[in-house]
């Protein structure tokens, strides 16, 4: 039995530990000189692909990232974790500022077709824009079934059995391949890229492409008007008695007088 082929989307985002600062002109957040790393949900997706490969369910893992040159950084991490090769779809920084989930979904679905993969794996969302759209859009564009927010994945004859976290419980669904799967936080614990694997990944192929190679127009259809800091939380006050609390609530019109 030949194993299934997987495409994993790896977005480069500002590192989770970095304190985000808004640019003075409110056009976005400061990214220059800021540490970036792979979107943690995508890391979970890479890990899942690698585990499926270790179980001999998957035969090849292709990592893909859309964005500026530095995206190769996260692709190298993906290859050090176990992806077999990588595709970097280069988008210049100015265009990348306005790249939207639909653009990425179009590119990834073309890549999926061209690479003849059976499964697209991505994080359920990226920790920068929290859009939670790309995976779903890929499924729609390809007209493939989707299993989002996966917290457990099993292979049964030609199908994937996926446990999903939903409001109020867990849902088990089956999807037929080819399919799109997005990963939730509790699916797995991604491994460290070990030093020997970092060095081995040097030899793995990384191909450079552009959106034009896939015939995708990346002209923005939405415009970001303003990016602002969330409002600073107001300091609270300590009250001495219940009466005082009731009075305060009444003053605020939160309970009837």
């Amino acid at each position, binding site marked *: 039995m030949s194993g299934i082929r997987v495409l994993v989307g790896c977005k480069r985002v500002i590192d989770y530990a970095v304190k985000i600062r808004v640019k003075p002109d409110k056009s976005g957040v400061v990214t220059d000189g800021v540490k970036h*790393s792979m979107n943690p949900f995508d890391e979970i997706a890479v890990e899942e692909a690698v585990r499926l490969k270790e179980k001999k369910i998957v035969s090849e893992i292709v990592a893909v990232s859309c964005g500026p040159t*530095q995206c190769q950084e996260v692709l*190298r991490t993906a290859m*050090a974790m176990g992806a077999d090769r990588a595709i970097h779809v280069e988008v210049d920084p100015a265009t990348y500022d306005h790249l939207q989930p639909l653009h990425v979904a179009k590119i990834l679905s073309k890549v999926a077709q061209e690479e003849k993969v059976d499964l697209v794996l991505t994080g359920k969302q990226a920790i920068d824009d929290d859009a939670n759209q790309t995976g779903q859009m890929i499924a729609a564009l390809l007209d493939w079934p989707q299993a989002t927010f996966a917290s457990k994945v099993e292979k049964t004859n030609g199908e994937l059995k996926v446990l999903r976290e939903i409001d109020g419980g867990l849902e088990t669904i089956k999807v037929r391949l080819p399919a799109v799967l997005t990963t939730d936080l509790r699916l797995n614990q991604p491994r460290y*890229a070990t*030093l*020997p*694997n*970092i060095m081995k990944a040097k030899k793995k192929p990384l191909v450079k492409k552009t959106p034009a190679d896939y015939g995708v127009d990346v002209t923005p259809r939405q415009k970001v008007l303003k990016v602002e800091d969330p409002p600073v939380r107001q300091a609270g006050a300590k009250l001495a008695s219940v009466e005082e609390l009731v009075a305060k609530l009444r003053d605020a019109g939160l309970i009837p007088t």
Partner: protein
Amino acid sequence: MATKIIRILPRSIGRRSPTIVRHLSTGSAVFQEKEAQPFSSDGHDIVYGPYHLQMQDSLKKIIDKDINPYVDEWEAQRKFPAHRVFKVLGDSGFLGITKPKAYGGLELDYSYSAAMAEALGHINCGGIPMAVGVQTDMATPALAKFGSDYLKREFLAPSISGDLVACIGVSETGAGSDVANIQTKASRKGDDLIINGGKMWITNGTQADWMCCLVNTSEGKPHVNKSLVCLPMNLPGITVAKNIKKIGMWCSDTAQIFFEDVYVPRSHIIGEEGQGFLYQMLQFQEERLFATATCLAPLEKMIAETINYTRERKVFNQPLLNSQIVHFTLAELAAEVELLRSTLYRTIALYVKGQDVTRLASICKLKAGRLVREVSDKCLQFWGGMGYTEDVIVSRLYRDLRLVSIGGGADEVMLSIICKFMNTLPNQRRQ
């Protein structure tokens, strides 16, 4: 003593250089033009390419998950679980960076070791980076370069994988920086050595499985009568006398060890008998660079933490940081750290090229020792009473890093070496 070191170094480094050049050309050259920028805005990319940084990232993740959450506990216990921590590092390949592939290493050039040492600085104490340094840069380099296949399989390979913990036995009660003066003796009986004497200040000493032990194997001139011996620590006659109490480096155990008729096969001598002193001097070079590299992150951490603290701390209705003496001092210290970093990177670059860096490595170590004292003292002062408590990282680093000026060749030894190069050291006769 130092002239000897200088004469030996270039030869052995020259032997290593072909590998180094090859790694450099595959490593950084390909990526440097375009990729250097995004990784850092402050010049880390001069000796580090993308793979160095990726490696540091991976190591920092391990530190954040498997080491830092436990450091306080280990400090309180006065010991960290070396086998557990080394296994984690060994599994990820961090204990054999420059070591031969045949024994589980990666055969990378020294810049990768330096990058690792620098990343180890993110551990919230001085003790663990030091313990790791003993394993990778003090107890094993001579074994890797000169040891027999048998010794490398027995001691090097399991030290690279993290299954064995190593210690280095050089210092004695009467000989530390003065290495030539050690008294521990090995006499010969058939195919065995019989070791008598003792070692002092042995980092990892209570936990180690084996010691890279410097002993006198014959009478005669102090530079040609010593040998390095791989000594399993479970042999009869070895007594780990005590875990020495120190003002800092609490989670790193430091032992005094006695040898009484310890039998060890002669085949456990590393390389040639009588060459131990020279091998040991070689090991010292990388140790100095390692020590300097591990200081950078703590230096920056102390300055950053002090900025945070003094910004919050109000004195006379003003953040303390607004006092000119505070923000100017911190700026000056930050400038000094950059100078140290620059010197270290230049030294590493030259070392990787195959040049003799004895003088520069000694300068790095000297200035690192001086600077950690200055920075920790000045920062601690700005923390006031809080700085005098055990609860803050500045006070821990103040205690821990005081050792940099003492261990691995004291400041005064570094000064002597620099003086040798300046031709200003008066002739000394050994009594």
